């Protein structure tokens, strides 16, 4: 399975948010720990709603959490 055309900084943001665990973030967003892990590893592209919820948890705009890869049109 190819990686999605965007990367994310969720792992870093979790670290700077008091070393928040994947499970904690999942609980706040309404998904399982495994889904957060899959998103971080680029194995799952979240819905727009979950993407916004993740950004909201960190108090960041969406583009600070998910970044489109510039080399992909």
């Amino acid at each position, binding site marked *: 399975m190819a990686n999605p055309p965007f990367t994310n900084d969720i792992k870093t943001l979790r670290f700077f948010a008091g070393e928040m665990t994947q499970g904690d973030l999942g609980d706040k967003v309404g*998904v399982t720990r495994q*889904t957060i892990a899959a998103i971080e590893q680029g194995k799952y592209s*979240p819905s727009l709603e979950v993407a916004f919820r993740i950004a909201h948890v960190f108090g960041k705009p969406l583009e600070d959490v998910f970044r489109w890869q510039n080399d992909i049109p």
Partner: protein
Amino acid sequence: MAFQEKIEWLTLSAMVVAYGIYFSLVAAYPAGPTLVETLWLFAKISVAQIIVVTIGAVVLALAFRKEGQAKSDERDRSISRRGATIAYYVLLIGVILVGVVMPFEQPSAAKIVNASLFILVIAEAVRHVVMLVSYRRGWHG
């Protein structure tokens, strides 16, 4: 491993064993069993499989209490839809083969019944395999 993934492994394993036994037994009847015998055997195997999966799911839920309480999320649902979609095409091809092609060769009723059951089992197995692969390798749906 997601709780749903554990359940998928359990279900697929139980399916392979249960219907492996069923089709082995059916193959052992050279003359072919009667329709009632066929369906009765299939029903018994299916009920046994359901009991095994139910008990296994309860054991998994107790062993992984927190995960077991979590509802399916959007990834689980997306992966489930993918499995069902691909299994649908397998079922469609199987129905065409069994319902449209097979009758021209005038097989026994038992053969048609078992071929139909086989297609159902294969389609269901494909659904579980696709879901497991999607959990392992990722899915962007």
